[in-house]
Each structure stands twice: as structure tokens, then as C-alpha cells.
């Protein structure tokens, strides 16, 4: 009966983990917009604004598609994240985190981006292509410090399994106290990974007309809104699992992930945008330096 229980449990997790991620992600989107508003001394959107936006986008009467790959791109962009969050453990639900681990997850997270990149490519709009070329460059920029951080963390915990890392931290102490330099570098990389100011070069609305989103209408845009909420969720949960000891219970977990995601959100409205090469330069300089020194301490 144990196997039956575990199977039914897994099925429940397959259903609940993405839903939960989506809902929390929506709240994070709201938070992002609220923080922006407050920093600009505005009131900001009402509580259900992210829901209104998504419902409206999905309920558009007409929308355009540039072809099958355009459609599939959005499917992969959303579906890739739905799958990725199942690899991310949350309190009480491990999903299939033990089958992959942190390296798998970091590469898994590129699937939605690649899907979107293919979809945007078929739009035959150079603004979109420029956006993707910048987005991939940005990925090259932030992934190098991020992967060094991942390496250091995995080396420190002697494991690539997220579940193992969380257990270790809950038994000992949080990673951020044991590896402060790596945690700082990770936070820096997180800023780039979320694709918000000052590293939102690939969106650049006034310059390349929101880049990848240029030809997205209706449910296509809706898919990208859904993807954005997953993105916030994944970034915060990943960081929490690596450095803040995951969550022993839901209260602690929610507190931590919202705290984590609040930091880059607040920073993002304080700086103007970096040029692509400046972003690469800054990402390859400071966080990489911090992370390498951090690794030296770990070894």
C-alpha cells in the first residue's frame, strides 16, 4: 500500500505544486507592481490586478499567430516552468526533486526560454530577434556567476540534491551564514535572472518595442504573463532552498520567499538600464569575483 500512497501523493503534488507556484507567482507580480508604485509615490494596482490582466488576455476575441512554432513556443514557455516547479521542493512536497537535482534544474530552466526564443523567431519581427539575441547574451552574463554559485553550494553540501541541501541547512545552519560571499553573488545573479531593471535590456520597451513580446497578443501575451509569475516564484524558491534553508513550515517558507523576491524588486526601480555589453561586463566582474572568493573559502 505504501507504493499506492506514494503514487497518489505524487499525482497530487504534480497537480498542486504548479498551481501553488502560479498563485504565489501572481502575488509576487502584484508585489512587484506595488513596490514600483510605492517607490514612485503612486497607489498602484488593486489586489486582483494580475488576475484581471491574465483573464482579459486569455479572453481576447481575436489574436494573431505567426505559425505553429509561435504557438508551440508559448506552450513550451509555460509548460517548461510547470515542469520545472515540480523539481523544486516546498514544505511537505518534494515532487520529483530527488530525480534531478540542482544541475538538472539549472538546465531545465533554459527550456522555457528556448521555447519562447523559437516562438519569437517565427514572428518574423526583427525587434523580437534582437530581443532574443540580447536575452541570450544576458543569460550568458548571469549564468556564469550563477553556475559558480551552484558549484560552490553543491560542493559545500556535498550533494546536488535540493532536498539534501535543505535537510542539511535545517540540521545545521542556513547557507547564507556559512557561505555569505556565495549568497551575495547569488543575489546579484538573481537580479539578472529575473530580467528586471537594471538588466532588462532585452525588453527595452522604448527601444526595441518589448523585444520578444513584440508580436504577442491575447493568449500569447497571457502565456507570457503566466510565465512571468512562475519566473518570480522559481527564482525566489531556488534562492531560498540554496541559502535560506528552505522552509520547515509554510509560514516560514512564504516569509522567506517573499523576502527574497522583494530585494531585487526594490533594487530594480532604483537604477536605469544597462547596455548589453555593460551588463555582461558587470556580471562577469563583481559577482564572479565574489563567487570565486566564496568558493575558495568553501574548498
Amino acid at each position: 500500500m505504501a507504493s499506492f500512497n506514494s503514487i497518489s501523493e505524487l499525482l497530487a503534488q504534480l497537480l498542486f505544486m504548479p498551481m501553488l507556484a502560479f498563485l504565489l507567482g501572481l502575488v509576487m507580480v502584484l508585489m512587484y507592481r506595488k513596490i514600483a508604485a510605492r517607490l514612485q509615490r503612486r497607489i498602484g494596482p488593486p489586489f486582483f490586478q494580475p488576475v484581471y490582466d491574465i483573464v482579459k488576455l486569455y479572453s481576447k476575441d481575436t489574436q494573431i499567430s505567426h505559425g505553429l512554432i509561435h504557438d508551440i513556443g508559448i506552450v513550451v514557455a509555460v509548460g517548461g516552468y510547470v515542469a520545472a516547479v515540480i523539481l523544486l521542493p516546498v514544505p511537505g512536497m518534494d515532487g520529483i526533486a530527488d530525480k534531478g537535482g540542482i544541475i538538472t534544474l539549472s538546465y531545465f530552466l533554459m527550456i522555457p526560454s528556448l521555447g519562447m526564443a523559437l516562438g519569437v523567431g517565427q514572428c518574423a519581427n526583427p525587434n523580437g530577434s534582437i530581443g532574443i539575441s540580447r536575452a541570450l547574451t544576458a543569460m550568458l552574463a548571469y549564468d556564469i556567476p550563477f553556475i559558480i554559485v551552484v558549484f560552490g553550494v553543491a560542493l559545500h553540501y556535498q550533494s546536488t540534491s535540493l532536498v539534501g541541501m535543505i535537510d542539511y541547512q535545517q540540521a545545521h545552519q542556513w547557507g547564507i551564514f556559512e557561505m555569505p560571499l556565495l549568497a551575495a553573488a547569488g543575489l546579484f545573479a538573481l537580479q539578472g535572472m529575473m530580467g528586471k531593471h537594471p538588466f532588462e535590456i532585452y525588453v527595452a520597451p522604448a527601444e526595441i518595442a518589448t523585444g520578444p513580446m513584440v508580436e504577442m497578443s491575447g493568449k500569447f501575451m497571457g502565456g507570457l504573463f503566466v510565465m512571468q509569475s512562475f519566473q518570480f516564484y522559481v527564482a525566489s524558491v531556488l534562492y531560498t532552498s540554496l541559502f535560506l534553508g528552505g522552509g520547515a513550515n509554510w509560514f516560514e517558507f512564504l516569509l522567506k520567499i517573499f523576502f527574497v523576491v522583494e530585494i531585487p524588486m526594490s533594487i530594480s526601480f532604483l537604477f536605469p538600464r544597462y547596455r548589453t555589453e555593460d551588463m555582461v561586463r558587470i556580471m562577469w566582474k563583481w559577482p564572479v569575483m565574489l563567487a570565486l572568493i566564496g568558493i575558495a573559502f568553501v574548498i
Partner: protein
Amino acid sequence: MSKLGNIPVQAKSEKKRTNPLARVFDELIQFCQSRSMFMLHYCTGCGAIELPPAMTSRFDMERLGIQPMVTPRQADILLVTGYVSVKTLKRVILTYEQMQSPKYVIGICSCTVNGGMYWQSYATAKVLNEYLPVDVYIAGCMPRPEAVIMGLRRLMSNIENGKGNAWKDYYERYDYYLGNQQHLFGDDWQTPVDVIGEAKFYDLEGEETYGEHTRTLEQHQEPLEAAVMRVKL
């Protein structure tokens, strides 16, 4: 069927849907549509200067769920903020046609209503709703941000009550609008957007979708069928 300006206002279908859920969803959708409007401001004239204050901390449009967007594909509202020269009008029409329905047009400033101070200009399109179905006009030279927000709220309540349907008129009476456009731009006028194809595809054709002007268009139109992905060995 009554008329508002030259836009016929269709009474809402009295027949209630049998499925209660369908009605719930319709209302939810209408509500969400009214609470989430992405606007594309086509800044043709001086009225554009009144939009930044409406968006920023003084009046904060985002409270109402209204935020600026960049491309017509993403936008719901087209704000035409000032006089429209003939050359500009071509771009306004293309932009409008590239927006996805339901879509709304708001004419800001007197110039869009009747040409305003450009009344005597030979190069200005004076009445915007001859070329595009306009939902709301906000008169004034220029209207203050309060007035702009008033107009937006009017549009919101229209949408919420299911009255923001001017976009359907563009499909249903495409011949009329196309005629006016051809009158201004010449018979070889065409945009890269296949409006007739869209009307067919989404089943939005009306009695006046086709007419003499669409026939003129067909005579010289470059084909606009999408490239179909198919395996031809």
C-alpha cells in the same frame, strides 16, 4: 437599432443564455476587460503631454488597471492624442488594424473631433470616426488629466456594461470605413492587415462588410494569406 453619430448602436441581445455559468463567465470577463486596459498612445499632437501626468504619481492610472503598452498587438486602447494629418492617419489605421479585439479607440483633443484649430488645413483628417470606430471622444484643447481619466472611466463602464462594441462595427461596416479611407488615400490604398480575412475567420461579418470599396481593394490587393506550414516532399 439607434444611431450614435454614424455608429449604429445595437441593442444587447435579449435572449438569455441557458447555462448560468456562461453568463457568470461573460460577466467576469467583461469585468476583467474593464479593469485591465493596456493603452497604446499614438502621440500625434499636443494632447500627448497630458498623458504622463495621468499615468504618474499625481493621478496614477494604474489604480484603474490602465497601463501603457508598446506595440499594438498587446494593446486594448488606442489613444489618438491630437490632430491627425493624412500621412499620420495611414499609420493610425495600420496600428488600429494590428490591435486585437476587443479594442477601443479614444480620440483626445478637439482636433480628433472636428479638426479643431486645423479645420482649414488641407492635410488634416478632421473627423476621426469616419476612418475608425471611436469609442469615446475627450474634447478640449487640451483636456486636463482629470478629463482624460473621466473619459477612460466612461470607457470602463461601457465595457463593463457590454456596450464597448465599436470594434465590431469596423468589421461589420468595413466597406464604409474603407470607402472613406480610399477617398483620402486613393484607390490603391491597402494595409498589410487582412481585415476581411479576419472578419471571415472570427465570424464577424456584417451586411456592409463587403461593398464597392472592398471590390476596389480586391482588384489590386497583394495576397495576404499566411504561409501555411505543410510537408511537400
